[in-house]
């Protein structure tokens, strides 16, 4: 037997969850070993060349507030910045960028390699060492063993992945990459609850075979919005996207070949995302549409391939080429890499705690697509939480570190996953967040950076910048609340208020869309002392003020329910008055507290009262 190595935290996988977990654990001070099948693929963007978007951009901002990786690397790799929903309210605006794949990978690798606490190991994990329900390290297929305090598994779609292109089936993770069958078999032996999902990706196109003349261009924002507060400049040349449209002929071609699509001929039965349908799905389900939009996204500054967003497919390659060539601008297009559908195993996230530690094996964490999510940002967000907890495990006084749904999108996601599972690949939407007006991209730092300071995971410069910004916001709000303005005076600021003679504070007035900012600053010169960013923030807070106050009360009562802990060893079948449906649902999810229990489908109010009653009785007996 080979010599056993020791480390604090092992991360299996170098995707978005893996690198974020490694980085977070390292920042806490843990010694980290990151094991990957292919060192060259660390930080690979395996699907679309973009980061952020509506809901997703919120997560990236939160990662930044915690001092994470994804935000700054995306900024460094961005070849187009664009805020989605820019015409809508600030709470639902989603920052997004087109990212150069190779630049992104480079930025991630630099961060991972340069960190003195992270060591990268090229290898395939064969099994995880578990003794009496405690995870103790991993065994590589070379026979090498590494012992650790905790392990974070972030293997993405590598688990029993099967790629479908037409009738061809290839066992793999991503195309041209090996999938970790051995680890899959091992995980099966742990009899964790598993399920199968599918997702798809479109073909990649050779850029020089596309006729870009006459194609509609889609440019980024003139004033870019960065993900990271550390970013002060645009790093790269900015590129436009191009828009093309499918047509009736395209649809005809796809329709005629549906029997060759594994999605329709029965080869794939697992559930795919409803919100990201394949082109086959779109044609079949929305047969009355005469065209669908395809966004041609550049894969990088020097890249020779284009990513056609909107046409993920598993049709045979010749059909893919045929339907693509029916599209204006793509008449002579060549496919660089075929589109495909992939089926993969994931664990049922209801088996996880909110720390992403699996409930029945101590010190073993799961993060990313393996938990049933989809998307780089969702994966990275989980990586952050799992990495932090995996590192905190080193401390013998370990206390769970969780984000709840009242304070972050990451919290919403994890709460949804552990309470409700994933019946389709889970993607973030702003509508999943009931405290949406509070959980904004623009205040991610104000929501989370205090937590980061407590964990001591921010650089000194960043921490000081944050604390001074926070003070600035406090001062500015305070000053604005003390200035009172009559409707008459407001008129001079371009505001038409009802002439009720009621004086309103400057803070209140700043929330109105129509207020003339330059006139305000002229009249109230003290505002000049404050930064633009602070002023913008105060405007937004003021706009939502009445709703934020209301939400505070509801957040309070939610937190009360969070405080009612349900004992880990609770035996639901022992509780009287539980319907069998509620009992089953609770038994499966084993929620940690009453708030989480309330979000489990099938659990009624009556069931909750029984659980609470039982819990209180139990606790009382112990005391």
């Amino acid at each position, binding site marked *: 037997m080979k010599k056993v190595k020791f480390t604090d935290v092992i991360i299996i996988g170098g995707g978005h969850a893996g690198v974020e977990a490694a980085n977070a654990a390292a920042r806490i001070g843990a010694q980290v070993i990151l094991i990957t099948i292919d060192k060259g693929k660390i930080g690979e963007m395996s699907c679309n060349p973009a980061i952020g978007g509506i809901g997703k951009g919120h997560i990236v901002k939160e990662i930044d507030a915690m001092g994470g990786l994804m935000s700054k690397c995306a900024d460094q790799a961005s070849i187009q910045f664009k805020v989605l929903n820019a015409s809508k309210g600030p709470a639902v605006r989603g920052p997004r960028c087109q990212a150069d794949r190779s630049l992104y990978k480079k930025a991630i690798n630099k961060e991972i390699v340069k960190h003195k606490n992270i060591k990268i190991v090229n290898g395939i994990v064969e099994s995880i060492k578990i003794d009496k329900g405690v995870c103790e390290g991993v065994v590589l297929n070379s026979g090498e063993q590494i012992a650790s305090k905790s392990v974070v598994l972030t293997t993405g779609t590598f688990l029993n992945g099967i790629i479908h292109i037409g009738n061809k089936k290839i066992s793999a993770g991503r195309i041209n990459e090996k999938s970790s069958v051995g680890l899959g078999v091992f995980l099966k032996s742990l009899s964790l609850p598993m399920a199968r999902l599918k997702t798809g990706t479109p073909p990649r196109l050779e850029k020089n075979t596309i006729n870009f003349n006459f194609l509609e261009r889609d440019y980024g924002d003139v004033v870019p919005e960065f993900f990271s507060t550390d970013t002060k400049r645009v790093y790269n040349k900015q590129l436009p996207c191009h828009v093309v449209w499918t047509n009736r002929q395209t649809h005809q071609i796809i329709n005629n070949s549906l029997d060759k699509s594994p999605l329709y001929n029965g080869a794939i039965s697992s559930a795919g995302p409803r919100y990201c349908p394949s082109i086959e799905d779109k044609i079949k389900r929305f047969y009355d549409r005469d065209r*669908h939009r395809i966004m041609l996204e550049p894969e990088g500054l020097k890249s020779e391939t284009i990513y056609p967003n909107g046409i993920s497919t598993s049709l045979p390659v010749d059909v893919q080429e045929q339907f693509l060539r029916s599209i204006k601008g793509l008449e002579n297009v060549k496919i660089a890499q075929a589109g495909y559908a992939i089926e993969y195993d994931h664990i049922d996230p209801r088996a996880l705690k909110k720390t992403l530690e699996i409930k029945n094996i101590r010190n073993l964490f799961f993060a990313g697509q393996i938990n049933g999510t989809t998307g780089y940002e969702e994966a990275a967000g989980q990586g952050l939480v799992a990495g932090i907890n995996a590192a905190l495990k080193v401390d013998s006084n370990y206390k769970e570190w969780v984000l709840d749904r009242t304070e972050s999108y990451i919290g919403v996601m994890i709460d949804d996953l552990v309470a409700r599972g994933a019946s389709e690949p889970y993607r973030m939407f702003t509508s999943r967040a009931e405290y949406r007006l509070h959980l904004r991209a623009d205040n991610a730092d104000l929501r989370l950076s205090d937590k980061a300071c407590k964990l001591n995971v921010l650089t000194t410069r960043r921490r000081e910048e944050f604390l001074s910004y926070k003070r600035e916001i406090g001062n500015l709000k305070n000053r604005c609340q003390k200035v009172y303005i009559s409707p008459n005076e407001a008129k001079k600021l371009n505001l038409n208020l009802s002439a009720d003679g009621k004086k309103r504070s400057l803070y209140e007035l700043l929330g109105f869309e129509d207020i003339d900012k330059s006139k305000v600053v002229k009249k109230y010169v003290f505002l000049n002392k404050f930064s633009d960013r602070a002023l913008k923030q105060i405007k937004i807070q003021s706009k939502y003020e009445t709703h934020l106050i209301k939400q505070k*009360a509801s957040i309070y*009562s939610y937190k009360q*329910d969070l405080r009612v802990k349900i004992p880990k060893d609770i035996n639901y079948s022992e509780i009287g008055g539980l319907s069998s449906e509620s009992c089953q649902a609770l038994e499966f999810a084993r929620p940690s507290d009453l708030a989480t229990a309330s979000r489990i489908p099938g659990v009624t*109010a009556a069931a909750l009262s029984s659980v609470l009653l039982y819990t209180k009785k139990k606790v009382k007996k112990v005391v």
Partner: protein
Amino acid sequence: MQKTIFALATGNELSALSVIRVSGKESEKLLKKLTLKNTPKERLLTLRNFYFPKSNKKIIDKCLVVWMPAPRSYTGEDCIEIYTHGGDAVFQSFFSVLSSFPNVCYAEQGEFSKRAIINGKTDLVKAEAVNDLINSLTEKQRELAISQFNGGLSIPIKKWRKEIIKCMTLIEAYIDFSDENDTPKNLNIKAELFALREEFKEALKNKHYYQLINKGIRVVLKGKPNAGKSSIFNRIIREQKAIVSKTPGTTRDVIEGQINYKGNAIIFYDTAGITLTDNNIEKEGIRRTKKLLKEADIILNISEDEKFLSINDNTKEWLVLNKIDKSGNLKKKLKGKAILVSAKTGEGLEAILEKIYLAISKKTKRFDGKKSIIMNLRQANELKEAEFNITQALEEKSEEIISEYLRQAINALERIIGSIDVEEVLGNIFSNFCIGK
């Protein structure tokens, strides 16, 4: 910030006293603002005047109050209990005054108990016992509530909820998928929301049904002075409650008496006869009578003389001819045109009661099949809350804020039917408690 809650802790039947319980951080401030005096010594019953706020000392009630600072109170929070005079009017005044303060609202069902449990003041086993007791005492009301729960208001509420969710779906698609080109470019839900609001308004009109059943039907006796109203009144309630004399205008104030007839509560009001008078006391009596006539479910227009019989015979106002013992002829002549009674002999009084009973049956039957019946003040308030939020949504431009209003509207509807809601879990648990306990 947790809200300060209040509720009527005693039953809502007519009684000499009512107890209003207030719990939460604002309690002491409320007490000071309403009594315009310092906080009384803790745990000591103290007499205080309660005034309408900012009203230049317009009094609400003079009553005993006790101040119980946290943690030595039922809920473990700052509490006050106000021992007001009984009756709905006093409570309604307190209700509107208290709820006008920011962060103060009427308690959810069982909310005091919930807070007591959260603050460790009581445990669920004890609470459960109290709950059983309350349930056994009000078994009939509970039955009524449950039958209502199964087939009543919850049906339209579910429908409304669905419709609001439909609108929300459109908004959310508009927000979350705006970059995907397949969602509508414009949001148009105004018509739907407008229609919903109209339905809420319509339903709110039905709120009197509950009163009809639970509080009783209100029958007001009116007529010229000395028509014998008080005699009939005394005879029906079987008590010499109203003073009877030959002097016209003896009854000046409104006198009230309740009877049970075939399981229905009927409240009779004897009133001052309406006449032209210079007497200030009589004038005030007439003013009160007129007010009551507006609120009445049935008016008995009593006359002793055929000449005075008004022609105003409608579904609400019935003609009653008294003193028919005096003239047998009259009896024959007017049969079918008016209810003929004799307060002296009691003849015809049973017929009045029977006719009232039929009217109640008819009135309630109108509602029996109807789904949108509001049972109580709480439900009416929630429905009003829903209506308010829809109105706000109709005026708002930002989609994410419209969505927020719709979410609030749904929450309000869900609170009525008691389905689970992220924020209200514990509240629902105790929904079988009566308010204020």
